């Protein structure tokens, strides 16, 4: 009885559908132009590309599980990258010997993660203690972070790093591109966090019913602080990957990533009202989006049209999923107190 139910829920799970979608998109693009899409070069280049926004999507997934959203991830990524880049160009520079530049690189990485955590904490404080709606708090904070990055750089790109910086974005470890490896590690960590820790369970319970979480004596404020802080940390990791791949940092890199990563989280089955989401679903959504994006690239669809497609896709997915989510929401028409 129990095992029967489990198999049927496994097949009915939205993640199963997402896996099929990813395979179908891949097969479709492969058929459209087998010699280009399926070439080793294209596959490798995709594996180097998607971790940037995939890590941002993980950050948004985490926050979305609480029913909130973090619109400042790109701002945080750029601010932390700009700070790291300034440290590297100021103290290291391209001509420094290997060991010294490694040291400075480590320091820059630490500073960047610290900036991510502090920026996330700021978001968390706005949401948890001042009770601001997450969408507005993080939108405002995101503009502040971007503004700080512009103020630090005057708006131009910071470049001229020691060679070691390029390692993150351009090498392979055990046959896997380093950015992909970072993404896999972060995804696994997030999966464990959500399913195996008290903190993760509290996140999905809070997302299901914030009031009941308060009544069940969950430390709601502390939990929100940690969630936004982690989101900021993830964003700064994404910032490091972007910096290393571009071999520069700029206040307005990756501006199209915000919409894309929200889209991926929603496409990945995360309930934007909170309470439900699985990392594996987000991974499938990332793959689908990357296949689609590369495919559109090969078909020479312009970048502007792509934003339009992403937006329309987001609305479409939300509309088709609404019936599913609605079963997860409280009845609205309640008359008795």
């Amino acid at each position, binding site marked *: 009885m129990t095992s029967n139910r489990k198999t049927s829920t496994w097949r009915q799970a939205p993640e199963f559908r997402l896996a099929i979608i990813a395979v179908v998109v891949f097969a479709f693009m492969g058929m459209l132009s087998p010699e280009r899409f399926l070439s080793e070069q294209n596959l490798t280049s995709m594996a180097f590309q998607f971790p940037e926004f995939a890590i941002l999507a993980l950050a948004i997934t985490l926050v979305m599980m609480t029913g909130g959203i973090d619109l400042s991830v790109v701002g945080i990524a750029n601010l932390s990258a700009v700070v790291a880049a300034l440290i590297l160009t100021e103290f290291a520079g391209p001509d420094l010997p290997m060991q010294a530049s490694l040291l400075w690189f480590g320091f820059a990485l630490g500073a960047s993660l610290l900036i991510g955590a502090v920026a996330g904490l700021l978001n968390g404080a706005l949401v948890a203690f001042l009770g601001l709606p997450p969408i507005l708090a993080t939108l405002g904070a995101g503009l502040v972070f971007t503004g700080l990055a512009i103020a630090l750089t005057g708006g131009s790109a910071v470049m001229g790093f020691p060679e070691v910086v390029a390692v993150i974005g351009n090498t392979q470890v055990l046959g896997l591109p380093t950015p992909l490896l970072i993404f896999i590690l972060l995804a696994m960590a997030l999966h464990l966090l959500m399913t195996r820790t008290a903190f993760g369970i509290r996140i999905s319970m809070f997302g299901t019913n914030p009031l009941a979480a308060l009544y069940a*004596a969950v430390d709601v404020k502390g939990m929100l602080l940690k969630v936004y802080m982690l989101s900021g940390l993830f964003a700064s990791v994404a910032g490091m990957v972007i910096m290393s791949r571009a071999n520069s940092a700029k206040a307005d890199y990756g501006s199209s990533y915000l919409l894309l990563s929200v889209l991926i989280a929603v496409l990945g089955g995360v309930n934007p009202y909170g309470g439900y989401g699985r990392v594996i679903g987000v991974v499938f959504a990332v793959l689908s989006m990357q296949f689609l994006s590369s495919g559109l690239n090969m078909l020479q669809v312009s970048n502007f049209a792509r934003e339009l497609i992403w937006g329309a896709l987001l609305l479409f997915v939300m509309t088709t999923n609404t019936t599913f989510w609605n079963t997860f929401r409280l009845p609205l*028409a309640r008359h008795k107190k």
Partner: protein
Amino acid sequence: MALPDPGAFVSMMGVTKRYAGVTALDNVDFRVGAGEAICLAGENGSGKSTLLKILAGVEQPTEGVIQIDGLQKDQLNPRLSAAAGIMVIFQDFSLFPNLTVAENIAFACQLTQHQKWFHKRDARTLATVALERIGVDIPIDERVESLPVAHKQLVAIARALASEARLIIMDEPTTALTEREVRSLLRIIRMLKDDGVAVVFVSHKLAEVLEVSERVVVLRNGCKVAEGPAEEFDTTSLTRHMTGRDVPEHPPNRLIETPETLMQVRNLNKEGSFHDVSFDIRKGEVLGITGLLGSGRTSLAKALFGLVTPDKGQINLNGRPIPLGDPIAAASSQIGYVPEDRLTEGLFLTQSIIRNVAIGRLDHHDKHGFLDLPALVGDASKWSNRFKVKTPYIEAPVQSLSGGNQQRVVLARWLARAPLVLILNGPSVGVDVGSKSDIHDIIRSLASSGLGVVVISDDLPELISTCHRILVMRLGKIIDEVGAGTVTEEELAYKLAS
């Protein structure tokens, strides 16, 4: 299926309503004549709210026929129902607290007339006429939020009349009224009946309205189980029909006479909610707190668990003060709180039964940062078995359970934490009769094991059968304290409403 009745204003024939597998109404015939007053009685979950929603056009019946004025209506919606003169007054009256009396009364009427502009003078005239019709004098420029509860109800009635109501359905009309206010409500009902307006009372406490009613209809588990002239019913027979059996209520277990005080509440005060409240709870004692809706009982209950921050006062547990207004501190000092509204405050509806139980004890299962999942599942299933939560499948979402089983889940969550004091706000609201007496047994056995239990309720038989002492609240003050053994239900009802 009954034959249509040509004289009736509204007849429902063979109406059935199913929600995803649950039959809320099963082949029910219900007829209201012009100027007739009917009591629609039933426990929580008996289907009376569903019937009311179908009449109001909010829900569509799965099967069955509805006729209004002898004309068959295939699809009712809220606007059609209102246009036919069917008005529902919900328990919270659905008024706009920030608008004036006149605006509230005129609003619905002007809306149905498709007026695009608001005419202040028309609104005032309309309101004055409607209020005169029920013979009450309420300042029409007053904002509704500043009115007492009884006046809000009158405004809701006047609003229904202004929209030319022919049938007024009142949901739990007397829960928040004092005895004198109930009297004047009954006088108004009689006037309405003389005007040819029909009234349906929906309630589980009907003694007060029996005298103005012609007919009583009793629902149980979605079926009509009794119907007849009001004279043939009294409180006892109504209860029997509603519950389907005579449920013997045990008196509370005898309190072991120990002087040991568990919790002391001193001069607890919250402006606008409760004033200068002091009481003690001893080990093994069940303390009842009762009062009408709006008497401050719920705010007080929440304040004991830190969900409401009092401006003054002190709470001591075992002689040590507990920080006020901090639910986490309250929980870690081993106070538990089972909220009044299970669905919005108590449960995580889409999450599994296991998680709903385990959320209270996550830290206990934390081993080096990771949860010991087998232990957590084992622990949660142990507690839900102990409270006989009926489910084939403990991974099932808690929303798949019945009200009684849901309440057991919340109880299990708190009792797994081994509390010293457990606060139960409305422990058996929306729970079927069988579960209700089980929950009462649980309360008794908790007290016997040395817990201090606070039961906040307006269910008088429940209080009398579970509590050793009952505090009566009115307007935020404790006005009386009665030993449960010494008071009858009627005396308690009188103290509450006088």
